[in-house]
């Protein structure tokens, strides 16, 4: 049985079966990112001889309608899949009332009780609010953006997370005026050199960054779709106050686990007080043996959809299929789908230095110019590739970073190679596919320690 009732966002947005990824995450995000990339393609196409008119406008409603149509089809396909496997789908909100028993409340408030031998918690997370005046009334989050029935207009994105930067990126790509307000680090937890390069590439596209500020109040000046909002913000380093006017304020300051109102305390499932996440062992079991957890609610695991799916699949096999395989979380690759995409697998450089020490590492890097950018007259020194080797075991690759087009497509195979113990020698021995961006990794020659110029020359 699956229980999945979505609590509407403060703005009233709700959605169907499939979780965050399908409805308000990866899928609509990637489609909006694609819409923005296509805008860039229109600009490039002129250089390649296509007689495209100079000023092309974007229609938000056309895009969201198409995206929601696809999301709807995914909701339905999941419902169908559950039916086909004879899994009962109950569109209700579940919470524990006692051991092995839950109360399910549907949208109309009707309560039903169910018991089961085993339970899996996969309730995920929801966007965090600032806790300031006007935030819930006037601000939207990623929960609302992908089905927003009107164009958001000039937008202030609050936050430095991958969600913040991805949204800011595609909004700018669609032709909107975008500002990003970050209180401290960008892409916390990621390689900071790469994070700064991501920000820099976004600035090149016209995104404005307000660093080290945090909003203290949001006021509505005008109602509308969109309306007009005034944001008052305070510096995190001093007493400076700034004000700004925007049509939309999008909060992307992090996500909180949905573990507070599902009765976990009634059955004694331990929850980390600080993070709200559920600690589990290596077989996804919580502190209560018959309760398992997968996905973003789980403590200490990457918040990635494929990780959740893999964990869930292997759990099912272990519980019912007599299999023993555990989920391997090591070196889970990830990609930030900013206009210029950033893919990575393994250690950030600063983390590698912390764990291995600088003298035991070698970092190879290069700037590169995608062939498709040459004729399009796009900058030759923006895209960047970096590999970190550990001198310990045979120059094994422990960190892979790429900033460039199609970073996701590039990174996947490298992640598989790292699983197989990729070393520098093997990288050097492998022939590149020409002409691609990915091939740049097979000819890395310049180390950071040499101090040499990392710009590319020749074909």
């Amino acid at each position: 049985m699956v229980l999945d009732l979505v609590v509407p966002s403060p703005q009233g947005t709700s959605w169907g079966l499939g979780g965050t990824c399908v409805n308000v995450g990866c899928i609509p995000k990637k489609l909006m990112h694609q819409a923005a990339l296509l805008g860039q393609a229109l600009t490039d196409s002129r250089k390649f001889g296509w007689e495209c008119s100079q000023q092309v406008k974007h229609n938000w409603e056309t895009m969201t309608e198409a995206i929601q149509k696809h999301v709807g089809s995914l909701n339905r396909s999941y419902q169908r899949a559950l039916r086909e496997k004879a899994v009962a789908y109950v569109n209700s909100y579940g919470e524990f009332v006692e051991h092995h028993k839950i109360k399910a409340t549907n949208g109309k408030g009707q309560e039903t009780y169910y018991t089961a031998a085993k339970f899996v918690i996969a309730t995920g997370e929801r966007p965090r609010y600032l806790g300031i005046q006007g935030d819930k009334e006037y601000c939207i989050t990623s929960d609302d953006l992908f089905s927003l029935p009107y164009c958001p207009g000039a937008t202030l994105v609050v936050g430095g997370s991958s969600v913040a930067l991805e949204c800011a990126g595609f909004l700018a790509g669609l032709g909107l005026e975008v500002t990003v307000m970050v209180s401290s680090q960008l892409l916390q937890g990621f390689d900071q050199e790469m994070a700064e390069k991501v920000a820099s590439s976004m600035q090149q596209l016209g995104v404005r960054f307000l660093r080290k500020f945090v909003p203290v109040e949001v006021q509505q000046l005008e109602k509308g779709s969109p309306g007009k909002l005034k944001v008052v913000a305070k510096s995190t380093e001093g007493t400076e106050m700034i004000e700004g006017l925007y049509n939309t304020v999008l909060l992307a300051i992090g996500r909180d686990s949905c573990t507070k109102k599902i009765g976990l305390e009634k059955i004694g499932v331990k929850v980390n007080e600080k993070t709200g996440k559920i600690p589990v062992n290596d077989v996804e079991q919580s502190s209560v043996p018959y309760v398992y957890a997968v996905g973003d609610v789980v403590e200490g695991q990457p918040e990635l959809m494929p990780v959740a799916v893999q964990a869930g699949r292997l759990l099912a096999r272990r519980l019912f299929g007599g299999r023993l395989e555990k989920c391997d979380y090591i070196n889970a690759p990830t990609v930030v789908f900013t206009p210029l995409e950033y893919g990575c697998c393994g250690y950030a450089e600063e983390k590698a230095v912390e764990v291995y020490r600088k003298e035991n590492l070698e970092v190879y890097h290069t700037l590169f110019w995608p062939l498709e950018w040459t004729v399009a007259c796009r900058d030759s020194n923006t895209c960047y590739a970096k590999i970190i080797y550990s001198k310990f075991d045979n120059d094994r690759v422990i960190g892979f970073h790429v900033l460039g087009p199609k970073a996701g497509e590039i990174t996947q195979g490298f992640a598989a190679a790292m699983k197989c113990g990729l070393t520098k020698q093997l990288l050097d021995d492998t022939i590149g596919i020409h002409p691609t961006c990915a091939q740049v990794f097979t000819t890395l020659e310049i180390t950071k320690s040499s101090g040499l110029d990392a710009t590319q020359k020749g074909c």
Partner: protein
Amino acid sequence: MHQAALLGGMIHDASHYGWKVAQPLHDWGKMAEAVQNHVKSLNWGHRVQLQDRKVKYFNFKASFVNPHMVCGVSKGGEETLLSADHIVIATGGRPRYPTHIEDALEYGITSDDIFWLKESPGKTLVVGASYVALECAGFLTGLGLDTTVMIRSVPLRAFDQQMASLVTEHMAVHGTRILRGCTPLRVEKLSDGRLQVTWVDLASDKKDTGTFDTVLWAIGRVPETRGLNLEKAGVRTNPNTQKILVDAQEATSVPHIYAIGDVAEGRPELTPTAIMAGRLLAQRLCSRSSDLMDYDNVPTTVFTPLEYGCVGLSEEEAVARHGEERVEVYHAYYKPLEFVVPERDASQCYIKMVCLREPPQLVLGLHFLGPNAGEVTQGFALGIKCGASYQHVMRTVGIHPTCAEEVAKLRISKRSGLDPTVTGC
């Protein structure tokens, strides 16, 4: 030019994503100029690099006088004799012309010419089944030109045949006319300047004609060894292929004369392979290393409208080498997320991983048909170099949403007979 064609497709997609744009016309001249300017900048870049490294560059046509001496002839006809301790031949190849067709040279062009045309080639007949033929036909179609490909027997002969047929199927569905089992007999010039081609269908023996603005021969390449006077140096070639015979050190039958790249026998005809072979040779000659070139598992990509990236063995090669019982093929038909909004046909988007059946199921070959195939394949090629097994790939967490993650999600084997279509998000 493939990118120019892809951009045309993107403009079409863009309107589905909300961009208010009408399908525009394409100006060949503008594209050609931009492409040619970039190529010229690369020519220049190479000259600068040679200069920086103090390598003397002679714009001469060279041929052997004896094993240690070469005669270089300039454009003006002046001869210069040059001698050296080591000589490297990297003269590559040139497109082949059909010998049985009169005036093939005068009336047809090749890949040597197509990228330098100042004006659109118009309605084009591409003769050939090589990746050159299919790539050219592909981008010409994408630029809006009426394009036909004439294939005598099978497309992409040296490649996995299931993948090759999906490649051509995609092209046929998307506007390229494909004439299978046909071969041209004659090319005649009409009074209006257009070309009339007569061909025969080999199965039925029926003849047919067609009128085209351009005929593009893409029936293979011949190594540039004829004008080198190799016999004066004692360098031996394969009498069938005309390519230069080399050993694992890239040395020819004459120890101090080497050959690398497309001109060398038994080497993959790929740029990065030639570059790496040259680089390693240079290091060996300067006694910096003794590393030899590894020609196994060289990845490549065919840049047809739907790209095909591959590394390792084709399914038929794997079966021939190991036997059908010892090979397991995992496969999937998938749909790139970006295709859903513009409702693009994804029928040929397909992945196949050929493995040994015995655990841990070593990966013998990977075949990916879809957008950005080159970018997808590169990393997996590294994996194969590292001895990747099916287990390794399956334990790799996917990056979502991408096309590449579908490789890490391959579960259905051909042997199971189950439907390999990916469902769900």
